[in-house]
């Protein structure tokens, strides 16, 4: 009797390990493969050793992408560890982005199963974890990844290759580096107002081994300004006035060809009205004039679509995708 019970427990222990590995192996072979943009850091886990902690773009979801009225009906505490489903769409450049977040499992399409972190009202961003936030690696490899991520002033986004099962369970398969890196430099006003941010320069560097082209529209329309709501303490100020209503048409002069290792800088003068942001009361202001220190921003480089570039001479070289600068605010850059 006892011998049988012991054998049963032994078998169960082996089955548990086998199931954990088998389910993941099945997803790796049968799941749909996508890429997710992330930023890495490298901590150590006492049981699992060195790993790279990953902060996915799709891990921070604006509340306006939440479907169903459940978020308004639940308390902040009950959101913690809540099971949610994040529906994805494939963007140009092969990186998946968020379509919407729901409480119910979508009937079809590409989606990931995740859990909410505690939601603190009145934040307008939800943090979702997918169980993909750690990439385990040999200690020297983990450090090497961190080094490749920062090449001087340039930060190169990491794109994780993920296999997704029809139930939304995801398994990490590998990773690739983005072909373009991005650097962010801020320019301050002279003393005594030296905490006032005057301008930001975005540098795009070709970190791939092939020639690439970026688009720098002469009207400044390649860049947009976004309030980094995941890191901001306030959401009642700091909304960008928005892009030009009638952008100038693309020309060959807007296309900059970059050989491997070459870079191109784009400067944004934040004191100009087209880069102003909202303040409470409906008016607009330069970022430097905002009252709150907590509001953070990011500049976003968005390449035009392949369709838009089709008539251009160097269309085949143009990199299609989106790059996000480091967050910056009054007197600091993260």
């Amino acid at each position: 009797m006892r011998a049988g019970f012991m054998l049963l427990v032994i078998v169960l222990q082996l089955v548990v390990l086998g199931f954990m590995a088998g389910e993941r192996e099945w997803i790796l072979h049968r799941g749909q493969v996508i890429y997710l943009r992330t930023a890495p850091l490298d901590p150590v886990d006492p049981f699992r050793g060195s790993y790279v902690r990953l902060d996915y773009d799709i891990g921070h979801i604006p509340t306006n992408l939440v479907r169903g009225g459940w978020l308004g009906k639940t308390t902040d505490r009950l959101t913690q560890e809540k099971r949610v489903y994040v529906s994805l769409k494939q963007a140009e450049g092969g990186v998946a982005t968020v379509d919407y977040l729901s409480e119910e499992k979508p009937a079809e399409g590409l989606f990931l199963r995740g859990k909410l972190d505690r939601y603190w009202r009145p934040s307008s961003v939800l943090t979702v974890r997918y169980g993909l936030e750690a990439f385990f690696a040999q200690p020297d490899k983990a450090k090497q990844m961190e080094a490749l991520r920062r090449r001087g002033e340039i930060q190169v986004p990491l794109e994780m290759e993920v296999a997704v099962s029809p139930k939304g369970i995801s398994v990490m398969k590998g990773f690739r580096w983005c072909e373009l890196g991005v650097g962010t430099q801020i320019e301050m006003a002279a003393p005594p107002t030296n905490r006032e941010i005057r301008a930001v320069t975005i540098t795009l560097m070709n970190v791939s081994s092939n020639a690439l082209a970026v688009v720098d529209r002469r009207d400044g329309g390649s860049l947009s300004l976004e309030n980094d709501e995941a890191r901001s303490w306030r959401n009642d100020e700091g909304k960008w006035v928005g892009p030009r209503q009638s952008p100038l048409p693309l020309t060959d002069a807007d296309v900059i060809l970059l050989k491997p290792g070459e870079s191109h800088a784009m400067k944004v003068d934040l004191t100009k009205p087209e880069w102003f942001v909202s303040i409470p009361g409906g008016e607009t202001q330069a970022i430097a004039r905002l009252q709150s220190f907590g509001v953070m921003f990011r500049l976003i480089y968005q390449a035009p679509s392949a369709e838009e570039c089709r008539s251009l001479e160097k269309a085949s070289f143009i990199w299609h995708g989106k790059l996000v600068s480091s967050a910056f605010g009054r007197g600091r850059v993260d």
Partner: protein
Amino acid sequence: MNADVYEWLRREIRNWQSDGLISCEQAESLQSKYPAERNGRPWGMIIFSCLGAIIVGLGVILLLAYNWDAIPKFAKLAMVLGAVAIAHITGFFLKFGEARYRALGEGISLLGTMLFGAGIWLVAQIYHIDEHFPNAFLIWGLGALGMALAIDSIPQAILAAVLLVVWGGAERMGFETPVWVVPVAIAFILGALAWRRRSVILLAVVIPASLLSYGFTVPLGGDSSWLLFSTFLSLAAVLIAASRLSAYPGNFAAAGKVFGFYGWVIFWLMLYLMSFPGLAHHFFYWYGYPLRWTHWLFGLIPLSLVVGLWSGLAYLKKAGKIRREEGDPGWEVYLVPLTVVLGVVDLMSAQSVAGWIVAGPFNLVYIGMVAAMMARGCSEGLLKPTAIGSVLLVILVVARYFDLFESQLIRGLVFVAIGAVLLVEGFLFTRARKQKEGRAVQ
């Protein structure tokens, strides 16, 4: 005679002795006919094989944590699954084979469970799984619990208790999720195993493990610290009652010391804290927040246990089923449930009373118990109650030095009085000790 039969005989002799069927001398005589050296459990083998298993298991976890790229994924999986299987199967054959290898078999099975835990973390590492991490401790703990029940293994049960407490703690601290099942499983499943095996070691782990995991489930927050406090006061009273009830014939007599140790440590700590007016007021003042059903549950379960066990104890004492042995506490033990009653009264009236009205009665109970311990120690010539009572008295006097007497004159007089009490106590204790030794010689 094999180890299990020997263990059974030892238990029976202890029970016959506590039942009054045989005298202490007869018990010793019976024990000496079956010397422990040849027939007792091979503790050396058990301790070293279990320690070895734990250290090897932890070493494997750390080795795997290095995440050596040179070893292919499937080789790593095969290594861990193979190691778990080999350790468990070897343990199985040793455990159910020759008697002299059974303890070694238990140690190797423990290694198998350690490797099972290592396997959980390794699979998580290979597939970069970063999900709800307390689940790993739950699965590992269930593996250890299953094995503990399958082979009645004390080391596996201790490992299960530790892992389940870590699970409950991680859920509570990291995710604000109280896990009720942990204290229940530890107290009833592992506690039953400790009782069945008459294992003092397992009981010494089960009691703090269930108390700690129970503490993790108590609803906390600005309005609920009183609940944690009153719950632990009641649980201390429950443990003290259990320590006395263990002496009941047929029970697990050796458990009494374990129950008593934890019960008295918690009780004295609680009583000492309640002797401070500020703390007592804080513990019993629940700010008029509306009481939730969990408050009632957490307050009432330990309280009903106090009522049930102390009533049972009083009945058994009156019926002569439980006799007071030398060294057992005397009448002052009934101040324990009285303290719980005082706590309930204060909880019900805490909105209207404060300060020394709340803390005063607890100080009186403290002094009463200390005085009774010292008096009993001196009259019976017992060192333990005399020494513990004296130390507790000095601790209380030092505490009151700071918050009661502002006049240096009164402080000085109190110290002189306490010093005199201790001197007299020393004299009385020495005299009683000599009389006792004289009686023993006669």
